[in-house]
């Protein structure tokens, strides 16, 4: 019997049954096996796709080793971002300080790799051993003539969300450096798409067809110079708002650029992401082109989804992802496939997010915040889910319980955004749910009387 820890009881909510406000935004309970990472992780994942920057992790080796090549973010040019650089602090530096090693590492790496900028990520012990990372970065920046930006991402100083904020603060310093390159009056920045499996290229193509110029992508397939002129775009389009709203707000305050929140997953949300941009510019030609893009894409996509839907109608899904915006889109996208969401949760959702999830899910759906493997396995079993959508850490839970799995995390190698992504998503969900292997699964045989 799996019990839910007392401290966590209000972080789990059954739609239609419970009436309290779901608890969220808390530090994870000590001893619960949270699926969350740390502040460093938040910063690292957001900044990682800036391809022509140097990313140096200042700390002992683990933080760099575990994040080497971890994301599925692609670059159309520089591959510098894929190298894992660490100051690899040893006992010596823990005693005497790591500033010298940080300085020497930066100089050596900048000389060898000639990056356009450098990010220095502080890990847990950096503050404790008293390193003045700011001063070292400022000095190297002066000497080498490139921005060298400290990212204050000590793991224990909050949650992943605080890491997003630290990353936004660092990247904000790159904005506004280029005032000469001309920018179209119909220009946007894409914030919060990380070009996993080339997704941003799909999205950019839609905007291009609409007659919209993408001034910069922050941070998918990101470039330091491009970010330097982001302040001249007319609109910030924010996906993954959990991570990038801070930047959008800072850019609004400083440069007066308005922002809208979008999601590129699923049919409705993807279409809205295009229409919302077209409506913002309120230009007849753009609106017409947008209608054309959406019509073309949707009319190609829908018939293709039909055959998947025939097989998947009536299946049930559990969703556990990092940000709740993605969860919203997934609930809707699954509906197109005839799949009902019976469990949905996120690592970092807010009260508002969970209230919205209550609205869009059905009675009996479990909504959970910062859940853990034991709870997930319990909910999956209780609700009879056929599919789990999550990341690598959730995968074995699904597989051991004999249910299908779709990786919707940042390691994925399949493009799941855009209309094309909806097709890939459907194919992936279909190929996992319909696989004949489940009929051999002991859990499946016992709990569902076999796969069919």
């Amino acid at each position, binding site marked *: 019997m799996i019990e839910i820890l007392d401290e966590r009881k209000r972080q789990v909510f059954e739609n239609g049954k419970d009436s309290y406000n779901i608890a969220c935004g808390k530090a994870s*309970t000590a001893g619960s096996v949270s699926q969350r990472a740390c502040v460093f992780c938040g910063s690292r994942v957001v900044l990682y796709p800036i391809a022509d920057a140097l990313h140096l992790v200042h700390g002992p080796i683990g933080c760099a080793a575990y994040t080497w090549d971890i994301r599925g973010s692609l670059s159309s040019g520089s591959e510098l971002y894929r190298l894992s650089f660490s100051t690899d602090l040893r006992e010596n530096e823990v005693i005497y300080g790591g500033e010298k090693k940080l300085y020497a590492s930066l100089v050596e790496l900048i000389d060898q790799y000639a990056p356009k900028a450098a990010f220095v990520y502080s890990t847990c012990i950096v503050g404790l051993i008293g390193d003045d990372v700011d001063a070292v970065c400022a000095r190297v920046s002066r000497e080498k003539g490139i921005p060298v930006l400290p990212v204050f991402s000590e793991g224990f100083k909050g949650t992943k969300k605080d890491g997003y904020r630290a990353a936004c603060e660092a990247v904000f310093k790159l904005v506004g450096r280029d005032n000469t390159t001309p920018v179209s009056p119909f220009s946007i920045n894409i914030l919060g798409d990380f070009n996993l499996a080339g997704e941003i290229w799909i999205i950019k193509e839609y905007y291009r067809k609409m007659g919209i110029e993408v001034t910069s992508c922050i941070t998918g397939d990101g470039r330091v110079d491009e970010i330097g002129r982001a302040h001249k775009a007319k609109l910030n389009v924010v996906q993954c708002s959990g991570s990038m709203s801070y930047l959008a707000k800072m850019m609004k305050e400083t440069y007066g650029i308005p922002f809208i929140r979008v999601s590129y997953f699923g049919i409705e949300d993807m279409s809205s992401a295009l229409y919302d941009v077209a409506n913002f510019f309120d230009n007849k030609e753009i609106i017409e082109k947008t209608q054309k893009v959406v019509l073309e894409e949707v009319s190609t996509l829908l018939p293709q989804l039909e055959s998947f839907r025939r097989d998947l109608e009536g299946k049930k899904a559990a969703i556990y992802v990092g940000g709740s915006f993605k969860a919203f889109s997934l609930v809707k996208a699954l509906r197109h496939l005839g799949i009902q969401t019976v469990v949905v949760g996120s690592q970092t959702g807010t009260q508002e997010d969970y209230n919205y999830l209550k609205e869009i899910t059905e009675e009996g759906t479990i909504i959970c915040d910062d859940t853990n493997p034991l709870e997930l396995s319990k909910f999956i079993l209780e609700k009879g889910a056929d599919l789990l959508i999550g990341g690598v850490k959730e995968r074995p839970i699904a*597989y051991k319980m004999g249910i299908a799995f779709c990786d919707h995390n940042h390691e994925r190698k399949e493009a799941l955004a855009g209309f094309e992504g909806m097709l890939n998503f459907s194919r992936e969900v279909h190929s996992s749910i319909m696989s004949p292997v489940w009929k051999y699964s002991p859990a499946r045989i016992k709990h569902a009387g076999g796969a069919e």
Partner: protein
Amino acid sequence: MIAEAIKTKSPSRSYTSTRNACKLCAPFGACIVFRGISGCIPLIHGSQGCSTYIRRYGISHFREPIDIASSNFTESTAIFGGRDNLELALSNVTRQYKPEAIGVTSTCLSETIGENVPMYIAQYEKDRSEREKNGGSKEPALFYASTPSYRGTHMDGFHEAIYSVVSKLAGTSVASENVEEPKHLNLISGFVSSEDLRELHKILSSFEMPYTLLPDYSESLDGGSWEEYQKLPKGGTPLESIRRMSSAVGTITLGESIPREHDASAWLESNFGVKAARVPMPIGIENTDAFFSQLTEFTGRPISQKWMDVRGRLIDAYIDGHKYCFGKKAIVYGEEDFVLAICSFLSELGIEPVLVATGAVSDSFKSRILSILKKNRSEPLVMDDADFVTMLEKAKDLSPDFVMGSSKGFYLAKNLEIPLIRCGFPIHDRMGGHRILHLGYRGTLNLFDLVCNTLMQIKQSSSKIGYTYI
């Protein structure tokens, strides 16, 4: 401590930062060991990220659930100390998982703020024994491995965890006082695959003497599909078996690079007079012979004919494939003991490792590699404290034929445009990394086929004709 610290930068290091590390931090190794003990859950005393990253890294290799709890430091924990968090974590983990044991590890964070975890644990145990006396339920055994991430590599954490478990449990069996025990043997494996552990079980069983294999994640990190959700996957060295390690006829440790202060077999020898023998990892004929001889010495039993038959087939295979192997050049990297054993195996085939590297800092690595590779026609480049970018920079002039090691050598092999023969840990880009067999005569045979077939494939695909008989 300071004198020890000064040594940490090895003279062989030419670059200040580490670029694409060939190592992990110490808590990782400790967590693997703790999952190799029956009913034991690891608990990392530090930030939430440490446990999540380590889980993810391990899951990508083993493709099994690896639950690791965290005491979840916050900013105030870092200022005021983590005792309350640790106690809460211990009690929550006990409540949720009902484990037989909890393996606590430290991190760079908890070590740097000077946490006295052994004292916390001792007090926690004292308090709860009061509770148990008052009718509370039996609580899990607690182990503590000090694993500051800024010292050593994952292998130091691995050995430290074994040491922490043995030094806590061995000799505490209540049964051993009165009952005459049958003779039994200890085997401490290094960081090997789940399949290797199963092979070790087969080998040990053939000597017909009871044994303790520590750690043993042959099942806990490579189990079957489940009927019910298992909070902690079954399998692992039983605690009672570890308690009895103090009365064994001897302890065999695979691997020779364990620092004495982490060496559980040395501890058993000095505290209980259990004879300690260290042998190289049994990869290759000579290393495996040495391992089997040691088993014969401790058990007093001969090697079974079954293994001699496999040995015979292995020699036969070596001879069949010798022409494809002789004079070929290899790059080998990974954990020290693993690399030493692979080099020994390759040299038996006349393959010359030209670049040999480990991520660990080691004074003796080079001399030991050179003594294994004394037959090399040219002296190999041996690097400790190495990383993958440095390896690539050095390898370009060495014209190697293949790369042998974990999947982290992918870019190295890709850049050199030569094959990567995947073995060791981790294998993140293929299925079954944990099912690769490396050890014993059968493991060597498996590696031999991998190596020889790779070389044959190169020959086949580089030929214009593309022979179908080779």
